[in-house]
């Protein structure tokens, strides 16, 4: 076939070259550059993606295609290195603008495992299999060091079973282990509202509140929580 021969293409290349040079020599060179507008286009479309050019992609062996690996060139403002996830403390959405949320760039140093005196295993199993499954997944993630993913799983459980105290127990314990004592205390307080007649939970939550307050340096509050916990031992 015509297309398989080399000469015509060389010829064509030459013709194009001549045309092109003509273009360059012509006084209307300026507009070409503008027309080409490579620069303009690039600034217009902010550069983002690169392709791994070394890998050959074949339509026939499509399954082995190289991934279009997105590489972010320009970093967004609160950008952190992957893995260090930005934890954002949600605040109220105000009338016009969502209030500035506090971005916390580094995960605080982990505190020793939550209240040592409290054994989560003493808590009764949830009657919903789905909750137990998500809690187990969260445990697994936490064991792998994927704390944020664990929190995400627990929040998923909370949406599915919003009145399951065990979910609050885990969320609070996890936050405490992350050094978020204030958040842990509040979650435990909320958890308490779900268990007016469940002693094991009341004991657990009060112990956790005590440990959180101890972390916060609130010794009076801690003593009060320990007193409350003692009632349910």
């Amino acid at each position, binding site marked *: 076939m*015509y*297309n398989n021969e080399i000469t*015509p*293409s060389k010829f*064509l290349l030459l013709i194009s*070259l001549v045309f*092109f*040079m003509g273009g360059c*020599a012509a006084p209307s060179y300026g*507009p070409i550059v503008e*027309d*080409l507008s*490579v620069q303009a286009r*690039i600034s*217009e*479309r902010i550069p983002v*993606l*690169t*392709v791994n*050019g070394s890998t050959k992609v*074949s*339509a026939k062996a499509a*399954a082995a*295609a*190289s*991934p279009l*690996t*997105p590489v972010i060139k*320009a*970093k967004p*403002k609160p*950008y952190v290195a*992957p893995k260090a996830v*930005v934890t954002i403390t*949600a605040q*109220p*959405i105000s*009338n016009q*603008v*969502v209030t*500035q*949320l506090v971005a916390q760039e580094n995960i605080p140093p982990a505190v020793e495992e939550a209240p040592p005196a409290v054994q989560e295993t003493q808590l009764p199993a949830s009657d919903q*299999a*789905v909750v*137990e499954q998500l809690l187990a997944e969260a445990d697994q*993630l936490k064991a792998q060091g994927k704390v*944020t*993913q664990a929190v995400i799983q627990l929040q998923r459980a909370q*949406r*599915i079973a*919003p*009145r399951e105290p065990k979910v609050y127990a885990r*969320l609070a314990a996890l936050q405490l282990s992350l050094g978020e004592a204030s*958040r842990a205390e*509040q979650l435990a*307080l*909320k958890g*308490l*509202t779900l268990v*007016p007649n469940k002693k094991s939970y009341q004991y657990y939550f009060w112990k956790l509140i005590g440990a959180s307050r101890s972390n916060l340096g609130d010794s009076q509050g801690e003593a009060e929580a320990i007193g409350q916990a003692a009632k349910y031992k």
Partner: protein
Amino acid sequence: MTKQRTSNKAKKKAAIGWISWVWLFKFATVLMVLGVVALVYLDAQIRHRFEGHRWSLPAKVYARPLELFKGQQMAEGQLDYELTQLGYRWVKNAKAPGQVQKTHRGIMIYSRGFRFADGDEQGFLVEVSLQKNKITGLRLSSGASSALVRLEPQLVGGIYPAHNEDRELIQLHDLPSGFIETLLAVEDRNYYSHYGVSPWGILRAMWANIQAGSVVQGGSTLTQQLVKNFYLSDRQTIWRKLIEAPMALLLNIHYSKDEVLEVYLNEVFVGQAGKRAIHGFGLASRFYFGQPLNELKLHQVALLVGLVKGPSYYNPQRHPKRAIKRRNLVLSILAQQGLISDAQKMRYQGLPLDLTEASQVSRYPAYMDLVRQQLKQHYQASALSSHGLRIFTSLDPWVQHQADTAMVDQVRMLNQRHGKIEGLQGALVVSHRDSGELLALVGDYNGGYAGHNWALDRSRQVGSLLKPVVHLTALETGRYSPATLIDDGPISLPQSDGTLWQPQNYDRKSHGKVPMYETLAKSYNQANVRLGMQVGVDKVLQQLRRMGVEQSIPAYPSVLLGAVEMSPLQVNQVYQTIAGNGFYSPLSLVRQVTEANGVLLSHFPFAVRQAASNDSTYLLQHEMRMVAKQGTARGVYRYLPKQQQVAAKTGTTNDQRDSWFAGFSGQYVATAWLGREDAKPTPLTGAGGALHVWGQLMQHLAYTTYEDIKPQSIEYYYINVTTGKAMPNNCPNGVWLPIPKASAPSFNTTCGY
């Protein structure tokens, strides 16, 4: 004469010719050098653009994924709706992702799998057993046991850069079978053998066009088309034409055919949706069919390929006849070239266009508005519109759909009932009761219009919606209970200008001493102002602040009757705290943000802060349930089953300028507002207007039975409402009311009447 002239001419010509040749040579050399320089420059540009930087990808915004688990309660029609929105196709036998099938137990779903912020969810084939819209079982065909699975989330929008280009990146292996063959058959038959340009192709196209009597084929190669779209502006100039060919050649020299093709597939322009330009076949497939590209059948492939020639002329939504004609022509070309049989051609040509039923206009303008606002706090605009970030939100497509429908239906009916209400506007906010996540936002009475966001941008007086806060403040003192008698006699208060403020009841009557719960149920102004003055306006405002209202409000007594301007979103935040047993959790809507490849960037953890005691909130919730059962909000039971517990409050402002309704069920907190754009009086009270929007919404949301958890320190007593004292159970006209044990009412051994 003639001869002489000729010879003279010839001589002159020779002389000039000699000089010109020298000049021409010099000139040509200069041109050569310039040309080479230009070519090198061009080459660098091509490589730079092709290898380094390609597209800015808009951030993708996703709705919440639908979770399926045993015991999950769905609303009537919800599962079908969600599957349709996700582009699932109903088939007799589901055997590929994106298909769904009815079974005698329920339905069989073949999901597509998705990369969530917390990890990958594989595609699965699952049979969902349903009884009365409740999931009674999940059976995974793989035999694996899982208590829950989740479908992929619906893509609900993007955050677009200024030029509004949108695309969804695909790779060659994402193409359905027959796609490349179809594309090449129509656009560039010798793609894999030419050198970037194809004079033969041009000739063949011309011939084909002459034969057909119209333009059926284009002459430029895919490489040239790519160069045109990718590097050159849209201006039709001769220079562009001249540069196109050498650029195509250069591109062809540097890159493999497959690489160029992959870029072409993502660059090609295939449609326009308002300001948004649809680029690439990946997005085109979502846009036209609501399905991922790899699920397309040949007749759909033929349509997409056919669209390249003229996306607006052949727009299948606007010009279905043209589109079918074009598609069928593409199918005929396939048959001509022996790629499909005549029988196949006939069969595919007989199929409908199969366009998606889901609307492609932005369906969630109000919600997206807030997503954008929130993200701007954390990310630069350029990062949002160009890095292909993935934003996971809590938007619930079903709730949003019902919220939009309720607003449109009820506004239409109110306009019919009262005659056209000039400039009537509305807003509706819905959040999840326990997580504080925003599920739906309606910012305009007709839902789709993206003008003012009435849920967010506009604050109006809240009227009686503030009364629950007055009650909560009173209950927090420990000196009040729902049974406490409050004087509803006339009240007059001196104002700062020396005049007297004398608020009146809606019915212009006084009701003597009434138990506190009834002052809320009947929304008595005189009693509530008196109660508020007893506990202190400043205390009420402090309580309001703890519930998330941050603006400074002067402590005038009129505040007690709701002379406070708040947006529907803010009102919902206040009611969220009441619904959350006294715990304030900020309304949130972004769950996570990840990079395009799934790496987690931000995460918004659930947080609460106690704003009122659990005991007081429990008492208030009870009062608000009474408002719905027997008070001003009882109209909601026209929409809801009697046994469904809801707690609510109506609100009407002076001269009926604003019609409010706010409250919560076991799962949802919602706030509805209706009023005129110019804030002039309407014929609507809270119960006559916003109540209907709220009621219709709740009627169509999943209803789960829910018992409030009574705190240990509270007991129910049988109360004589005229004395406020407990009496024997067998007395007539008593009311069971929750009262803190610590302030137990005195007990009359007689009925006390």
